[in-house]
């Protein structure tokens, strides 16, 4: 470990830039590190390599090895030492290389990270962000395409969020880092470098509050709810449905714990039909929770049961089969048709 050096730190971009999700995350990290010297980035290969997805590209060069830590190769070690660093007053941002590798760190996340604030009745704060590239669609081998977010949303003490576009990627990451709660930050890895999703990111803008869902498209035929990579699928489905004379509400959840279901309830009361979409297995999932809460709150408004379009209740299949496993435009529209036919 080299001694701390006074390296030159380039100021984060202050002007509006067209960014991919990946670049927006990089800029968000850079801005957070610039704003607060206690913010450190740690994980496997995040330094010289810039992470296997290059999200941390250039950060170690500009902030030094003492703020961008290329760690040994062990997830429990990454999370467990981050907890200690947070107790000391740092704000670690951990990168888990792929979501399927988070499980060795699950013990530290669920036993310590999620509970220290409660255990000590607020005397210890653990402001840690764990960045998790998640989801399929990249043709990868086993353990590289999973969607374990429901496990974390089920763990009290953790916040769980997921972004679907560059503006949210930038701002939600900055807000998560600024939060005193531990945040699991799920990033749609197959959209990281999508040129089609490039969007203007204004570092001087006022962001949406972190723990809020957002209506992306207004319609009155049915409601689609999704998060992360499935948001794009739903937006594409809504565009296709329009050609068939249907107008769909599309809501990006953004926050999975806490769930902000106010806009969902409002929408369902208008449309009477709800389809939830996510890549994770459907049983005991975010989609299940939404279905339960919507029937509780909107029982008399529902014209059809809440339908779920999710990954199957199987381990993630060999990726030659993932096009069948992942919710796509056709499966979403098929679900909308079923809801309308009720």
């Amino acid at each position, binding site marked *: *470990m080299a001694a*701390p050096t006074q390296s030159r730190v380039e100021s984060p971009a202050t002007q509006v830039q067209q960014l991919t999700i990946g670049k927006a995350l990089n800029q968000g990290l850079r801005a957070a590190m610039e704003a607060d010297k206690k913010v*450190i980035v740690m994980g496997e290969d995040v330094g010289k390599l810039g992470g296997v997805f290059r999200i941390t590209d250039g950060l170690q060069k500009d902030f030094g090895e*003492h703020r961008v830590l290329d*760690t*040994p190769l*062990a997830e*429990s*070690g990454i*999370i*467990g*030492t*981050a*907890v*200690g*660093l*947070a*107790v*000391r*007053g*740092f704000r670690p941002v951990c990168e888990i290389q792929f979501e399927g590798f988070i499980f*060795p760190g699950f*013990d*530290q996340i669920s*036993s*310590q990270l999620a*509970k*220290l*604030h*409660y*255990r*000590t*009745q*607020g*005397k*210890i*704060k653990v*402001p840690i962000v764990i960045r998790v590239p998640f989801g399929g669609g990249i043709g990868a081998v086993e353990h590289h395409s999973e969607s374990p977010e429901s496990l974390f949303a089920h763990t*009290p*003490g953790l*916040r769980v969020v997921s972004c679907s576009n560059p503006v949210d990627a930038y701002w939600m990451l900055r807000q998560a880092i600024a*939060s*005193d*709660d531990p945040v699991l930050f799920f990033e749609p890895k197959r959209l990281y470098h999508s040129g089609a999703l490039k969007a203007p990111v204004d570092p001087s803008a006022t962001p949406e509050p972190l*723990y809020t869902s957002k209506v992306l498209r207004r319609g009155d035929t049915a409601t689609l709810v999704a998060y992360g990579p499935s948001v794009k699928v739903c937006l594409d489905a809504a565009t296709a449905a329009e050609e068939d004379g249907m107008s769909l509400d599309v809501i990006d959840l953004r926050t999975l714990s*806490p*769930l902000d279901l106010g806009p969902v309830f409002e929408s369902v009361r208008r449309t009477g039909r709800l389809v939830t979409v996510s890549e994770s297995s459907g049983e005991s999932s975010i989609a299940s929770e939404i279905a339960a809460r919507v029937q509780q709150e909107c029982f008399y408004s529902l014209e059809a049961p809440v339908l779920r379009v999710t990954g199957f209740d199987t381990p993630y299949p060999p990726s030659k089969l993932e096009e069948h496993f992942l919710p796509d435009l056709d499966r979403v529209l098929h679900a909308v048709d079923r809801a309308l036919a009720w």
Partner: protein
Amino acid sequence: MSSPEQWTRPEPGAGPAATAAEPTPEQVIAGLRATTEGGTELTQLLNPEGERLASPRFDPYVADIDAEALRGLYKDMVLVRRADRESNAMQRQGQLGIWVPLLGQEAAQIGSGRALQPQDMAFPSYREHGVAYARGVDFRELLGIFRCSDHGGWDFKRHGFHPYTIVIGNQVLNATGYAMGQKFEGKVGDDDGEATIVYFGDGATSQGDVHEGFVWAAVYDAPVVFFCQNNQWAISEPTERQSRLPLYQRARGYGFEGIRVDGNDVLGCLAVSRWALEECRRGNGPVLIEAFTYRMDAHTTTDDPTRYRLSDELEVWKHKDPIERVRAHLARTGGADQAFFDDVQAEADRFAAELRDFCFNMPDPPPERIFSEVYADPSPQLDAQREEYLSYLSGFAEAGGH
């Protein structure tokens, strides 16, 4: 089986091979011997007979421990043992849900705990009542955990004493991260620097987190003292189920120093801990200390050690009692008279009576405690759940009680 250092490695032709379920008689005997001996590399400054042994390496670290200071260490251990016995009894009387006895480990905890400076941080497991006492945590604050009315709410910053950690080995990584923070903040490098100490048992050394803690500490030169209290038993599993090497020797594989000290020798534990902490302060850490001791009571009050260990073993260790050897030394050297010992015992009895009184009068937490401080930021969902549940409860009160 020529040496205890090799006791878990069967020699060729030494008898029938052990199975996972049942060690051979030879291994049992060898294990017993190794359990009661510390091996040739055991650091000891005060032997079980209360004789002071010279140690050119470690004597300088206890040069200031005169008779008065030794009387202080004696008193610490007596008070902690008395509080431990009282708590154990209170569990038997149904006042505590469970108790984790420290009987036999007073020297390891007081010796290492008294080696710490105010600026240091200690990360305990769940048996470190003696360290808590040494760090100024009111013993009564520990009781809430075992009465199941809280999870441990002391001011960790003020005491430099992290909350108890019950999951085996988790705290080793947390402590290592904390020590990395001390290093990153430049608090290491001179005699006034900061250090961290983390406590765990011999069973924890099998956990991945302990291994990872050793790795992280080594590669980041973290100022952390790994203080393993090898009390020979992880509930019913002996140390031979954790390692075929003496635990302190593992440090070499990670690239830092490991040392075995007589965990029943408060002077030895104090000296070795001071040395290790100094190494860390100066940036020469980490260090692994194996305090070779013995858990004289059960793992917890739910445990029955008669099912898995021999009474002979217990009898051997009784002769190595950490308190009796200091008492013998003080008596032999004229460092204390009978009046002193009587006074300490009387103070310990008062201490225990206060503890008992406190415990018996400890109120249950109010129901709203369930919902408090889950998050740092507000949680409308939890606020709603709390309001709904309190409203539900108040309905019973309005109806005339429940």
